């Protein structure tokens, strides 16, 4: 049915029915949740017992990139598929200009200061992920935010369908496969890193993953935005 503004809404009796049903189910779930016994904490001790062999000290990084590296490999593959799925939605008429076109005072100074600092911060977050909270995803997200700031201040963006951009999208998978091949040659087991080199191999994979994640997140933003041209109503 249509309300006063002409928008479509559900009938209020249906809304009440849905809200009541979900409230009853929520009450049941909360009651069951408060009855369950507290879970045993075995995972922390297991991880701490083996963390010397993993090459890093941060338990989350060790779990993501050493003990459960196969899951992270599959997640990089999912991200690669997302970048393939978002590429056709880019605006095809974008030019290759990449200089800062803004004339606003505050925005120009902000971009001049923030972008180099953010790149530095992303590099630090990537490196510190080995022994403090940080890591590849956080650093990649910081770089993507950098790209977002540049787009919002009218710095032109290049077409992302060239060869080098595509190699950045697939960089994480390629480097991971290289590491798998290298560790197979050393230990003759699938995905078992040689113990003395595991810290460096993890940093190698994270380095590639940062650029891949940053490029894919930036591509997701660009594909949704289309092109908003000043002064004309082009919807992309």
């Amino acid at each position: 049915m249509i309300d006063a503004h002409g928008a479509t809404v559900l009938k209020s009796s249906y809304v009440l029915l849905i809200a009541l049903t979900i409230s009853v189910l929520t009450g049941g779930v909360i009651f069951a949740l408060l009855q369950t016994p507290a879970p045993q904490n075995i995972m922390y001790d297991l991880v701490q017992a083996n963390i010397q062999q993993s090459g890093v000290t941060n338990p989350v990084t060790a779990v993501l990139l050493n003990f459960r590296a196969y899951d992270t490999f599959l997640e990089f593959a999912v991200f690669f598929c997302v970048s393939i799925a978002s590429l056709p939605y880019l605006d095809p008429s974008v030019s290759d200009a990449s200089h800062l076109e803004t004339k606003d005072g505050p925005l120009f100074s902000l971009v001049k200061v923030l972008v180099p600092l953010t790149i530095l911060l992303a590099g630090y977050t990537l490196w510190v992920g080995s022994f403090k909270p940080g890591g590849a995803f956080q650093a990649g997200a910081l770089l993507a935010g950098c790209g977002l700031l540049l787009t919002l201040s009218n710095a032109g963006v290049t077409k992302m369908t060239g060869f080098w951009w595509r190699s950045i999208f697939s960089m994480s998978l390629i480097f991971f496969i290289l590491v798998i091949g290298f560790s197979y040659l050393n230990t003759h087991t699938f995905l078992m890193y040689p113990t003395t080199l595991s810290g460096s191999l993890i940093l190698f994979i994270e380095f590639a993953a940062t650029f891949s994640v940053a490029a894919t997140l930036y591509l997701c933003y660009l594909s949704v935005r289309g092109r908003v041209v000043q002064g004309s109503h082009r919807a992309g």
Partner: protein
Amino acid sequence: MPINLLFDGLLVVLILVLASGALFSTNIFNGIVLFISLGLAVSIAWVRLYAIDVAIAEVTIGAGLTGALLLGAWKRLEIKKSLHSSISNKETKND
């Protein structure tokens, strides 16, 4: 102990109020801005639960990037709506 619990309780109330505001607001722009604030409040909750990597990731990806995505898509649909309404106005004028 009680001061920690008080802080957690207030944070939970803040999160629930922001979530209801973001989900049940009539204006979409209000909903998106409240969703970005919800991402920030939830990131503080992750720090309270000793998940610092998750907090950093949530504040950059969850609040920042999802918010920018939603705002970009909203702007694009606004432009499309104004185009369609101007076209239909011209059609009704030509009748």
